[in-house]
């Protein structure tokens, strides 16, 4: 445990350059983000509530055996919602498993995402329908995809840009490095959004890198980098907006390090007990992003009890409908094993399927 604490200590977020907008309701005053009015604030809030609700319900659904293993993103809502609202609808998003529900903010049915976690092909979607890539499971491998898409959009002369999410651990992978470098060299309009929650499963940031801050990697790619408080939705939003407009203006990619702390298990299968310091987790939970934003909205007089309840009720309704729809999905037909693997399937597929149906007594 001693060893673990030692690690912990050095993974407490360095305050260095940490941009914030939301105050603490006391000595630190609230700021504002230019151009984000009451409507904008409430849009951010609705998105955060929807994500939070999705996450909390999913953990329950998992316990009830209604979805499979699930990667919890409790406490990451400010990063996801704040950056999302800096994008236009035709900008592309490349999520990792940690942002599995980001599509909900673009109208992707909750049932689709829940089906994905249920291991059901109803979890498929066409990335082009939502400008949203599939959920990426292998760490950092989505970064070159995002670089390629953004590069391609520039080649087409479109003003579209792309944003990809990845974690602190992901920055150790060659795929991150190659993707970030491609984006820089190709002047790809891309936002490289690093969710630095300071843990890669049980591996603390201190065992992942010796960089003082992950944002220091930006210089090595010759791109701008900015470091924000990942628990401050407005700071994330503002930083992403700047990166997006730079990208649209032909300024290429920006690396954003959004610093937060993983205050939940890595996934439903994970037990952080052996490796994480409960006190530090409590601290993070006490300071979690949704509560901070609610305090801000109330201090601004934008949020009041009725509205909060209405918004939360809507989110719960979305999830209720979503899980019901996901569970109403008929069992997937085994033909789906073969059907979409290739646009032009070989003869062997038909033979294999017939054989399989015979065995299954269909």
């Amino acid at each position: 445990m001693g060893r673990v604490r030692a690690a912990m200590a050095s993974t407490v977020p360095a305050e260095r350059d940490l941009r914030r907008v939301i105050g603490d309701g006391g000595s630190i005053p609230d700021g504002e983000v230019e151009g984000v009015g009451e409507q904008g604030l409430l849009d951010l809030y609705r998105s955060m509530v929807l994500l939070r609700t999705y996450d909390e319900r999913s953990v329950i659904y998992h316990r009830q055996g209604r979805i499979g293993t699930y990667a919890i993103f409790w406490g990451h809502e400010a990063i996801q919602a704040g950056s999302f609202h800096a994008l236009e609808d035709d900008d592309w998003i490349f999520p990792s498993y940690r942002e599995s529900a980001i599509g909900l903010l673009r109208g992707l049915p909750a049932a689709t995402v829940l089906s994905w976690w249920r291991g059901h092909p109803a979890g498929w979607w066409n990335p082009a329908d939502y400008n949203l890539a599939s959920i990426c499971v292998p760490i950092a491998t989505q970064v070159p995809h995002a670089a390629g898409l953004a590069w391609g959009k520039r080649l087409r002369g479109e003003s579209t840009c792309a944003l990809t999410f990845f974690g602190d651990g992901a920055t150790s992978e060659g795929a991150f490095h190659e993707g970030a470098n491609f984006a820089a060299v190709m002047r790809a309009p891309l936002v490289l959004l690093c969710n630095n929650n300071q843990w890669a499963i049980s591996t603390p940031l201190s065992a992942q890198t010796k960089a003082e801050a992950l944002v220091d990697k930006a210089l090595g790619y010759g791109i701008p980098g900015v470091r924000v408080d990942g628990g401050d939705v407005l700071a994330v939003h503002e930083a992403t907006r700047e990166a997006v407009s730079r990208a649209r203006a032909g300024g290429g990619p920006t690396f954003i390090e959004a610093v937060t702390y993983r205050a939940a298990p890595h996934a439903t299968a994970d037990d952080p007990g052996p490796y994480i310091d409960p006190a530090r987790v409590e601290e993070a939970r006490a300071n979690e992003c949704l509560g901070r934003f609610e305090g801000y909205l109330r201090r601004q007089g934008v949020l009041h009890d009725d509205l909060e309840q209405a918004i939360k009720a809507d989110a719960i309704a979305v999830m209720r409908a979503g899980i019901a729809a996901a569970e109403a999905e008929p069992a997937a037909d085994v033909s789906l094993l073969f059907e979409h693997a290739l646009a032009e399937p070989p003869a062997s597929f038909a033979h294999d399927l017939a054989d399989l149906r015979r065995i299954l007594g269909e």
Partner: protein
Amino acid sequence: MSDLYLVEAVNDALRVEMERDEDVLVIGEDVGRSGGVFRATAGLLDRFGPDRCVDTPLAEAGILGSAVGLCMAGFRPVCEMQYDAFSYPCLDQLITHVGRYRWRTGGKMTFPITVRMPYGGGVRAPELHDDSPETYYVHTPGIKVAIPSTPADAKGLLAAAIRDPDPVVILEPKLVYRTERGQVPDGEYVVPLGEARLAREGSDVTLVAYGAMVRVCERAADALDASVEVLDLRSLKPLDEQALLASAAKTGRVVLVQEAPRTCGYAAELAAILAEKALLDLRAPVVRVTGYDVPYPYWAIEDAYMPSVARVVGAARSLLDF
């Protein structure tokens, strides 16, 4: 003897070998503080300290590449790849260096690297937690490959791999990590590479498998009204060719079972050996029961992808009725 789950036997082997030889290091993602996502390395950090059980950065090529250098410093690194499909970033180091470096030094330098990982499907996991990547490893020169199906073999083969002077890849069937317990010898226990295990004797038809498919074949044997032989290869490279040919000579009917996609899977290699060396013994075609040549599916339909008892039984019957 202890009654252990397969994953516990892996843990036991690591502990025993690390005690036996202080040059043995365990490195990988989450192998230390958490003891591994499957607990295969549980307790090693506390017992052997952070210099011998190392949580590495999240980079599989970095893990295997630095293992090459650790060998040059006289260590015997045991690298954990967290899952089958997450081992692919290390293939470049494996193919270009791990399998060739010894030859490159005229045999002067050995690279006793062990790469171990949970592999295979059927565990209701998200995408890319279900692959059977043995072909990529078996085809690579300079690499040995073993796949246990029982707790005892999991311990013995891993110990053999760690002591082996050559690089060895051990694929551990995660589907049976915690299904049945088995008797495992305490202390030092080695199962030599290259020796198959006759899981069941029979005379009418041979079912050849490894890893999680051995159980499937045993159940198929129960379901068949014939005298069925089940051969658990245990070691894919080197292969116990004699055991394969002997069983084929005895039954003349061979079903080869693998989870991996069919094309160029390991069953193809076995079939090729039979077609070249056992032609006159064969009383029926050699049939393969394998995963399909498609991406491993989402888990709601994975059971239809995995070779099932029914598919193996069907294949065996087709040979018996040939």
